[in-house]
């Protein structure tokens, strides 16, 4: 990995306040942060900026998080990007479905703090093999 290139995290979250808090926390850690407020934007931004990690909410206006997962995993240039699902859904079926669709991790928002999220993001970044 190039040490001086900022690693980028795409946060997909429709709640404005949650989004800005999460962005603030990751930005503070020196990560490049991109945001998307809905599914369509998320896919478009992902294609454009090629983030290193995606933090994805599931309940989104328009395309929902599951559909975003599918679209990104179907995209050759994006399918290797680890996706951390960060949602307030958290029933067994939701988790299994996200896993099946290729999510790297699943965190129920209310059960974690942003520091926990940061840890998981770092975990995924560390696991990325240098291209």
């Amino acid at each position: 990995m190039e040490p001086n290139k900022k690693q980028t995290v795409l946060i997909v979250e429709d709640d404005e306040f949650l989004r800005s808090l999460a962005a603030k926390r990751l930005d503070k850690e020196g990560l490049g942060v991109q945001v998307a407020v809905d599914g369509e934007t998320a896919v478009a931004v992902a294609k454009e900026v090629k983030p290193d990690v995606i933090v994805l909410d599931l309940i989104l206006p328009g395309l929902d998080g599951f559909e975003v997962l599918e679209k990104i995993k179907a995209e050759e240039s994006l399918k290797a990007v680890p996706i951390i699902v960060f949602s307030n859904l958290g029933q067994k079926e939701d988790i299994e479905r996200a896993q099946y669709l290729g999510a790297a991790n699943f965190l129920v928002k209310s059960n974690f703090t942003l520091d926990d999220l940061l840890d998981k993001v770092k975990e995924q970044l560390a696991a990325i093999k240098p291209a």
Partner: protein
Amino acid sequence: MVLLLAAVVIIFHPFIFLWYGEHQKVKKLLQIAQLGLPQEGMVPADEVTKAVEAKQREIQAKELALNLANKRLDKLDTAKFEFVSVTTHQLRTPLSAIKWTFDMLAKGELGPVTDEQKMFAQKGYESTDRAIEIVNELLKIDSIQEGKDTRANYNFANVDLAELINSVLFLFANQVKARNIELIFNKPNTSLVAQVDPKRLHVVFENLLDNAVKYTKLGGRVTVTLSDAKLNSARSVAEVTVSDTGIGIPSGEQTKIFQRFFRSSNAVKLVTDGNGLGLAIVKDIVDNHQGEIWFESKENEGTTFHLTLPLQQAPLQINQS
């Protein structure tokens, strides 16, 4: 001409009726001649038919009304499910926001804070976390109630029942003290080990105790009794009773007590929040343990729930005969 005819009819109508009546009598006599006399006490066939038809219409009307009521209840049920799941999911979002903010404040991630400010932020964080736990519990109830929780998901293990009950009683220590309720646990001298799903059985006793404590007035008494008296019957079962001196269940509402979302009228008056799911879940779990649950209750005197739990889970669907 027409007028004349009308006048004749009007003037002579009593006679016309008489004549018609006679005509009917003659007809009936002819019928009797053909079919024989109706037996004593027997209602003429046409009246029977009429009565049957009327009854049928009545039944049809009732059926229609019942169907409608049932449909409405089904809708209500679905609406309540949706309500539970939507509110819980949607509650989690603002709760997350508050939790994260307090957390970042407490850790100084939003700028320097004094020790006192840090302490307050920390308390705010803890309170929010408690609220989140409650929401999580509701979601658990929700998923159990959506029928996703079947016996196949159960994890049976050999558990000391007294220990399990004690761990539940421990949860109520503060509540009981605050309400000045006497909490008694009677258990046999020897330990009773049964094959149960400890997590779910925990929910059973939690719900029963919660009701007992919640609906018992200050200074009342709640007694939990674990008994091995039924060990020597054909099938070894442990019996547990949870008895309170609470508000009781009105006799007219007792048949509904295990129904989902049902709350007795006096319970609603006393404790406004409550989802009416507790006992439905209890029944479901006890059934899945091949146990039985029943109760007796008198309004304003108290309620006693009895439940039996087999010590061994029999393999399912074995026909004894």
